[in-house]
């Protein structure tokens, strides 16, 4: 039993590190370090750099442009990126719709859509949740009624991230209202420029319009844009949900933040002439969280080891989303605690690129409340932590 990387894996790690050190744009790294909001262009630029190296899609089959990496290599790659602060490529195209297309799509669809997703020429967003279909996604009601060689789509999708940037949207729609709910759903690809689609921004409590409602009114979608069989969409979507089994705990990112938290604590006055790292209570809290992250790291490695030796991921994999998001949220709490009064000023413009005014407070402290507020979403999205616990109870504990 061992957790070590092999000599080849270590070599690969070096190769990745060198690539990142030379190719990850300094200006984007600077933005990430200074907590400046990334814009669409930053994500596109970085994905194109990866694309040129052939590394944009580690999870795709080689025939469509994937890297052919082993699970351990994929883990190494995403860890190294996270440690450097390289932003995760926006997942909707590369990680969400593409696997459905290359698994269930027609040849024509694969050729039409996959290359542009890989090269970040086309941006995708997701049309899943609805105002009345959150955790109970299968109860969705956005309807697609067949009319000749088109579907007419009517309904509303919500929590649509970055829809304002997107060119296309992939949607779960109801094509058979009389069937059992999971059995009447189809998977449609829709051009955002199609007449009848409107976006309403949803501002979150950190003041940013990160998500949208997407309204469909008599939107005509060619039947050729349906992936796979009519009424089989739920099956395809479920495949997506189980597709990523590693790296969902966000361990490398949390480790990096933990390091920054420690450094910040050492540089934060305690008001009595010392610093917060010397404060025994705060130091204890840091240690507890660091220990928890270490435990999570090894839970994730257990999953990785199983998958890389051809076994199914074990029961420990079902805890990763819960433990991961709780640790990330706990980090938010500690950053805010450290910032004290400095977490309170709301000066969002100082986190926009090109700000030339006088900032209030510095970096991590100044953004700590906004991150704390925004990240409450982590325990809610992607299958809420409550749903994750239901899965543990049903699938693992047999309750």
């Amino acid at each position, binding site marked *: 039993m061992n957790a070590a990387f092999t000599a080849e894996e270590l070599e690969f790690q070096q190769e990745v590190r060198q690539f990142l050190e030379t190719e990850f744009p300094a200006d984007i790294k600077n933005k990430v370090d200074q907590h400046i909001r990334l814009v669409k262009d930053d994500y596109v630029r970085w994905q194109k750099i990866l694309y040129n190296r052939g590394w944009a899609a580690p999870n795709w089959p080689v025939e469509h442009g994937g890297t052919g990496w082993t699970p351990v290599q994929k883990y190494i790659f995403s860890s190294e990126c996270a440690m450097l602060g390289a932003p995760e490529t926006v997942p909707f195209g590369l990680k969400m719709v593409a696997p459905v297309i290359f698994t269930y799509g027609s040849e024509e669809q694969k050729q039409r859509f996959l290359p542009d997703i890989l090269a970040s020429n086309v941006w995708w967003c997701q049309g899943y*949740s609805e105002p*009345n*279909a*959150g*955790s*109970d996604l299968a*109860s969705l009601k956005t309807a697609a009624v067949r009319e000749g060689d088109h579907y007419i789509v009517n309904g509303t999708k*919500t*929590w649509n991230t970055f829809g304002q940037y997107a060119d296309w949207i992939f949607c779960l729609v109801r094509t058979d209202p009389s069937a059992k709910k999971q059995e009447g759903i189809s998977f449609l690809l829709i051009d955002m420029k199609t007449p009848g689609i409107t976006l309403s921004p*949803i*501002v*979150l*409590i950190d*003041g940013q319009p990160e998500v949208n409602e997407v309204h469909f009114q008599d939107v005509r979608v060619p039947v050729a844009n349906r992936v796979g069989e009519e009424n089989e969409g739920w099956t395809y979507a479920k495949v997506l949900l189980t597709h990523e089994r590693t790296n969902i705990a966000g361990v490398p990112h949390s480790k990096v933040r933990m390091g920054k938290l420690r450094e910040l604590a050492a540089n*934060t*006055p*305690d*008001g*009595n*002439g010392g610093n917060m790292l010397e404060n025994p*209570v*705060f130091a204890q809290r840091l240690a507890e969280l660091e220990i928890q992250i270490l435990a999570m790291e090894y839970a994730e490695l257990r999953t990785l080891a199983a998958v890389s030796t051809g076994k199914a991921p074990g029961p420990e994999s079902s805890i990763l989303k819960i433990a991961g998001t709780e640790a990330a949220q706990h980090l938010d*709490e500690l950053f*805010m*605690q450290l910032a*004290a*009064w*400095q*977490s*309170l*000023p*709301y*000066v969002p413009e100082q986190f926009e690129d090109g700000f030339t005014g*006088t900032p*209030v407070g510095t970096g991590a402290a100044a953004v700590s*409340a*906004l991150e*704390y*507020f*925004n990240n*409450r*979403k982590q*325990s*809610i*999205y992607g299958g*809420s*932590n*409550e749903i994750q*616990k239901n899965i543990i109870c049903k699938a693992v504990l047999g309750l």
Partner: protein
Amino acid sequence: MDFSYSEEQQMLQDSVQKFVQRHYDFDSRRKILTSNAGFSNEHWQLFAELGWLTVPFSTDDDGFGGLATDLMVVMEEFGKAMLVEPFLATAVLGGGLVSELGSPEQKADALPSLMSGSLQLASALAETNARYNLASVATTARGDGDHYIVDGAKTLVLNAPAAHRLLVSVRTSGETLDLSGISLLLVDKEAEGVHLQTYATVDGFQAAEVTFENVRVPVAQRLGEEGAALPAIAAVVDRATLAVCAEAIGAMDSLLTKTVEYTKTRRQFGTPIAAFQALQHRMADMFIECQLARSIVMMAAMTLDSDADSRQQQRAVSAAKSRVGRAIRKVGQEAVQLHGGIGITDELDVGHLFKRVTVIETMFGNTDFHTARFSRL
């Protein structure tokens, strides 16, 4: 032993509840927040007419009585409504400092106009390197004949943009961390050398970073004895701490009520989510937190109104702030989680209540700070 409200306290509570019902729904509040001033001066005049601005002051100062329990009653209602008017900054903190340290002339010069709604105050006490230590004062005031010359910088000065005058803690002698050597000056906001960098706080209040560059302040505007202001400053901040604890009780009650209501109406998987026992128990846990928080705030308010000595009073306030802080984290986070995605939208009031209580946890010393202070006292 009687924990029920007196007749006057009942009337005070009714008065705030009626006002909120008529004038302060969520949309009205949103309009006020986005206005230039960030609060409604019309409402402020109404507060004056209704006598609320007299609540923090003793009858000697022509106030309502100055009881901490009276303050608790109004602040709880303000918390439920998420009031954005600067009651805390002007009446409780600023007014409290004038009342504690001011000479009869200084009080006469400020308190009547404060209580009648024409004077706004802000207190510049915290500094960037001081964290929560009120004794850590690097802003200096050196004597120059019948003036002081003030130099330094203060952070998170609530209500500075609207304030006419600032109460500023300055060091007239000693080293940065010395307990003695701190004085309190009343500074005209428009005085030369006073510079504000204004902003809203993450929960929607108006505040500023305030710097002082060679600001001349008449010695006559010093409140209390030179170098001896810290104990009074600390006592007034403790009172303000108790006030925000009470505000948090109201806000948390509101979070719990809204969460229960929401889970009864939100249907998923063919049922209201309130039917899930796992969620019911979590709401029961929220209720327990709210009740314990309310209880400890009552303890602290009653202790401040008793003849308990200063150490016991500080201990009571820290116990309250510590316990309420823990409750805030639990109740706030659970309310958002049980609302799902809409809990973090700007459109719904739940997210705003969550932000407000989170800010309260951070103000005047967070949970760890007060737990440690309680432990030391």
